[in-house]
Structures are given as C-alpha cells and as structure tokens.
C-alpha cells in the first residue's frame, strides 16, 4: 500500500504538466509570415489568427479575422524577438503554411537568412515559399479576394491550384534547399503579386477588396539570390521539364482551323525524361515528354470522332508544347544563363567523371547548349460530346 501511495505521489509530481506547455490562450498562431529588408534591417510580418473572430462574428460585430504584427532587427531571430515587445502573445509559427519573402530580401540571399527558421523546431520544412514580385512581403499580406476570409488560406489555396493550372510554382523549403545544394541545378520558387481588381460589385469595395493576388509565374534564383522572374507560359514549360505537371490545359491552334481557332487538351498525366548527350564535344540537352490528355475544348472545323483528326489534334498539341518549351529554354539560356531545369544533375549522373571537370562551368555550357525536345501526346478521352457543337453531323 505504501508503495502505491509513493508511486501516486511521484506521478502527481511529474505528470501534472509539461514544462514546455503553452496554452492556446497564450499563443499567437501565425498562418503566414513575411520577411523584408527595411532600412538595411530584417522586418518580419506575421499574420496572426484572431481567436475571438468567430465569436464576435456570430454576435454580428465587425471584427478582423486576423491581426498583423511586425518586428525588426539585424537578424531574423532579433526581429522575431522584437515582436514580443509589442504583441501580448507568444508567436507560434508551426502552422505557417506559406512564407513570403520580399523581393529585396530574396535578392540579398534566401538560404543565408533563413537559418534561424530551420534551426528552431516550430517552422515546418514543408511550408511553401513565395517571393513578393516587385514589392515587400507585407504589401501582399492581408489581401483576400476569394471566399476565404483568412488571407493566409486564400494564398495557400490559390497556390494549390497548380494542380489545375501549372503556370505557378509549388516549392517548399525542402525542395528549395535540395536544388540550392545541387551542383547542377539552381532553385526556383513561387511568386505572389498584388494586382488591381475590377470592382464588378461596388458594394464589395471596402478594405482590401480593391486588390487581388496572383501567383502567376515563377522566381528564378542564382544560388540563393533572386535572379528574376518567368512569365506564366515559361513557368509551365519549366514545370514540364521538372516533371511537375499533374493537370492543367494545353491550348493550341486547331488543325485546319482559322487563325482565331484554338482548341485545348486537359492534361491527365504527363511524364518527362531529361537527358544530356555529348556529341562531337558539344552538349545536347534533351527532353522527352509523354502526355495523356482529355479533349477539353474544340473550336474549329474538325470532326474529332474521326481517328485521323484525333491524330492531328495530338500532333498539334505536341507541337505547341514543343514550341513553348523551346522558347522558354532559349529565354532562360539567353537571359539568365543558369540551369533551373536540372540538366546539370542529369549530366552528373550520366557522365560523372566528365562532370568533375566541367561542373564549375556548367551554367556557361548550359547557356550555349543545343536543346532538343520530343513530345508524344495521346488523347484518351473526348468528353461528353464528340464533334464540335456548331458542326452538324451529316450522314
């Protein structure tokens, strides 16, 4: 009996609670953070969820769903600690879905300055990275133009739409760091841009409703420093070569149609194989894409219930992809002169000995290399209708 009592006393002492326990009413839960350079110092902006929002909203009171707090310092940690002098709760960043870096911050070097984020246990390595195009991170925070009332969720949801439209980049800390460490590949990241929004419903013209965010495009890094941006089509081409296409559409001129006739194929599945060859001491970059799609839209005088015409559509789609990707590769070779496609890593795997000799000059070699592409499209579905609606089916 005495032993049991002693055991109970010991359990009571040690199991009453965790030393590191932080109660919900002590936390400021951040869903998104922004990092900027302001007056040569690091400025952190955190979007904190407002715990009384639901309660007050139910009572009919107007209250913001989130609060914003800022801290400034010479380092990320100093800036984070600066927040504690102004904000009554302990910043909790484990739920950060997205981290936004201002353009100037990204130009100074990302990896060098995010050391603290990954050294501490709270920030998840799977949070998405976005670069605020042409502006500060805090400028794009606080905008919600969708159904989501919480701006962080709004950004996160439009980022996830890469599955439907691969004209943006879905990159997290792990992927960014992996590519940063690769000797034959430079990292890329997503982009977020603040845009004016046409006010169709004037009643909505309040607060931040005059703006919307767009994640169109991709930011390109040389090492960990921002080198520039790609437009939507080039971003899709990069995603194709990086084998990151899982959906979206390919639009192409309808075979036999007029100059304004375009058709679209929904991507069902896409698989890319990168290759590098050395021919006569010259490096040739190769990409082979196998795409399976479903007919999304047919505009033009073509009867796709005919197998010959389906073949024509497949060829037209392949050609459009080939042209788009060739243009993007050429642009990156000429403008940025850095390999964001990972052809260097392919070279390393295929010619490991040769790689040791040329790895320091790879970007130069990449920018002058010939690029060859081969796309094989297979149309596996045509939707609920066969021939275009405006064509009458004649017997």
């Amino acid at each position: 009996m005495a032993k049991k009592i002693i055991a109970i006393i010991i359990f009571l002492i040690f199991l009453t609670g965790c030393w590191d326990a932080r109660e919900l009413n002590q936390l400021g839960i951040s869903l998104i953070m922004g990092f900027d350079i302001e007056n040569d110092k690091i400025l952190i902006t955190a979007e904190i969820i407002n715990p009384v929002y639901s309660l007050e909203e139910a009572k009919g009171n107007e209250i913001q769903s989130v609060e914003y707090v800022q801290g400034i310092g010479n380092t990320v940690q100093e800036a984070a600690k600066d927040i504690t002098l102004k904000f009554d709760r302990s910043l909790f960043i484990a739920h950060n879905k997205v981290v936004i870096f201002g353009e100037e911050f990204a130009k100074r070097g990302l990896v060098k300055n995010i050391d603290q984020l990954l050294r501490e246990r709270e920030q998840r390595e799977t949070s998405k990275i976005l670069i605020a195009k042409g502006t500060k991170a805090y400028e794009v925070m606080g905008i919600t133009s969708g159904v989501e009332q919480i701006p962080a969720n709004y950004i996160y949801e439009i980022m996830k739409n890469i599955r439907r439209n691969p004209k943006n980049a879905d990159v997290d800390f792990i992927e960014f760091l992996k590519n940063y460490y690769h000797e034959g590949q430079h990292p890329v990241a997503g982009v977020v841009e603040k845009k004016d929004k046409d006010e169709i419903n004037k009643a909505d013209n309040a607060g931040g409703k005059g703006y919307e965010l767009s994640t169109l495009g991709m930011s390109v890094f040389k090492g960990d420093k921002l080198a520039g941006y790609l437009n939507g089509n080039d971003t899709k081409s990069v995603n194709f070569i990086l084998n990151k296409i899982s959906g979206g559409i390919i639009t192409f001129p309808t075979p036999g149609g007029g100059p304004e006739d375009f058709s679209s194929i929904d991507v069902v599945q896409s698989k890319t194989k990168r290759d590098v060859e050395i021919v006569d001491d010259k490096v040739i970059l190769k990409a082979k894409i196998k795409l399976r799609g479903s007919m999304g839209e047919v505009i033009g005088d073509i009867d796709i219930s005919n197998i010959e015409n389906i073949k024509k559509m497949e060829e037209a789609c392949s050609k459009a992809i080939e042209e788009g990707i060739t243009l993007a590769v050429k642009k990156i070779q000429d403008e940025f002169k850095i390999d964001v496609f990972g052809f260097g890593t392919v070279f390393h795997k295929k010619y490991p000995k040769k790689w040791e000799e040329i790895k320091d000059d790879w970007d130069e070699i990449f920018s002058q290399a010939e690029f060859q592409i081969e796309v094989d499209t297979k149309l596996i579905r045509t939707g609920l209708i066969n021939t275009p609606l405006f064509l009458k089916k004649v017997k």
Partner: protein
Amino acid sequence: MKNLSQTETFTYNQVLLLMIVFRLILGLTYMPVVHVSVGNQDTWIILLLSIVYKIIFNLPLVYLSNKFNNYNLLEFADKIMGKFLGTLISIFYIIIFLLANILFVTIFVEILDVALFPLTPTWVNVVLAFFACAYISYKGMTGLCRLGEVVVPIIIGITFLLVILGVNNFDFSELLPILSDSTFKDINIGAINSTFRFMDILLLCMITPSLENKKDLNKIFINSIVFSTLMVAILIVATQATLGVEYTKHANFPFLVYTRTLSVGEIYGFDSLYIGIWIIGNLMKISAFLYYITVALEKLTKKNNRLFIIPVSVLLVILTITIKNREPLLPIAGELNNVIRLLSIISVVVVPTIMLIAYFFRRKKLQNI
C-alpha cells in the same frame, strides 16, 4: 562462481529483438553513417558493405562467447586472462559501459532539449530518463526482454509505416549516380568507420550465458546485424531521397526532420509517432547498459547488482548533466565520432583479440572449463 544462466533465461526472439532495436535506435537518432567517408549518395552501399566488416571485426568476441557460452564477457575474461588481468578487464568494460551510456543519454537528452522540450531544464529530462531506466534495470533483463518482445515489433512496424508514408516524397534521383563519386577506398573506409559505431556486441556477450539455447548465439549475432543494418539502410534511403544528400548531413536528427515532412492530406504531425518509438527504444538501450554496469560491479564486489542501480544512476545523471551543460555533442560530430570509434575499437577489437590470442596459448588448460 555463480553465473547468469543460473538465474535468467532468454529466448532467441527476445534477444534478437533487443539487439535489433539497440542498433536501429542509433540510425533513428542521428544517422552517424551519413557523415562517414565522403558522405554522399553512396551511404546506403557503405552501410550494406559494413555488414561484412561488422562480422569480421566482431569475430574474436563471438568466437570466445561461443567457446565460453556459460559465462558472460567478464567471466570468461577471468578464465582466460587469470584473476588479476581478468579483474582489470572487468574494470575496463565497466568504464566502457559507463562511457557508452553517458554518450547515449547525452545524445538522447540533446534531442529532447532541442526538438521537444527546449524550456525544460536538462536535469529534469535526465532525471526522468534515469528514473525509468533505473526501474527497468531493477527488474532485471527478464523484464526488459519481455518488454522488448512486445515493444520492438511495434517500433519496427511504426518505423516501416513512417517510411511508407513518405513514399510520395521520395526522389530516388537524389541517390544517383551510384558508386561514381566515391572510390573503392572511400566506400571501404566508410564501411569500416560505420562498423565502429556499435558496441552492442558487448551486450550480446553479456547475455550469452542466459540464452535458452546457447547455439542460437551465432544466429542472433548474424541476424541482428543483417536486419538492423538493412533497416537503417532503408531509413537512410528514405531520408536522403526526401531531404537530399546535403540537407540530410546538415540535420542533427535527419530522421526526425524526415518525419516532419510527412502528411496524409491535411493530416500532419507524424513526427509524434517517431518521438514515441524513439523514446521507448532509447530507454531500453540505456536500461540494458545500466543493468550490465551493475552486473559487472556485482562480479567485482560479489554484492547483489541491485545495490548498485541507484548509485550508478546518480553518477550517470551527474556526469551527463555536467557534459550537457558544457557543450553540444551532435554538432561537433567529428569529435564525438572519434570518441565512439576509439571506445569501440578498443573494446570490441583490441581487448577481445588479446584475449583470443591468450586463449589459443592456454587452450589446453581451458578445455576442461
């Protein structure tokens, strides 16, 4: 002299599971092998090759354990080397067990301090850990073996589950090119280096007299090495394929970081599963070493080993806290690995080889034992 086989007996499964978890826990904690040799994408090959070296370098101990399977390591040291040298060897192994345990506890507490309880004082984590370990040791190896029979399959199952959950994140191209960035020499040096990170064979030699069937020793020795090495190789492939080779080396606790990247839909937090099995596995390993320190002291002093559990625990708590409050252990991996390698070489290869040579000289005399 009373030997352990007279008091406790353990089955093949019980000892095999314990040996597997003792080795697996090292990979689950800080994956030291990712730092050996060139530390590139060929790490898993280094690890697989190390199976051969582990068998070769452990042979003297295993041979002697087979020959003297009614005696534990310290007891057959007495028989072979004589009373005086045998006592010196016993003292030497007590120090080795102590140092090894201090290292395990220090690393265990470091991960608790850094990744789980940053605000909790180190002494609280150390005291709580030893509170549990002292209790387990007090109940003897029978309790630990029975616990292992239940818990180790769960640990292994959860480890595989964590690997399977991350399959979608694997990028096997991270592990290419194979055998191109490392030379034959690099791979072999790496394999030898990773061999000397384990001292668990010492525990097997301590358990041998308690084996239900002494002939199982060789099977346990080989199977535990093969199973645990294969499992750690799978963990390394999963971690490197997810985090990349370089970031795996940057992480102090690579498999913990790997588990933090896991998600199923919007469900996260699978690292808590890892933490659970990791704490249990570590406590089992620390308890086993603690127990055999006291068994060694029993042999020296002829007093019941239970008398030593609390004093040794207190000593370990004090030493661990002293080390932990002086410097971080894992970031200075080079120095830590040098210490572990030195301890391992002396205790697993040098001293047993000397005993083996002595055995061959005194073979005829010892045949009647």
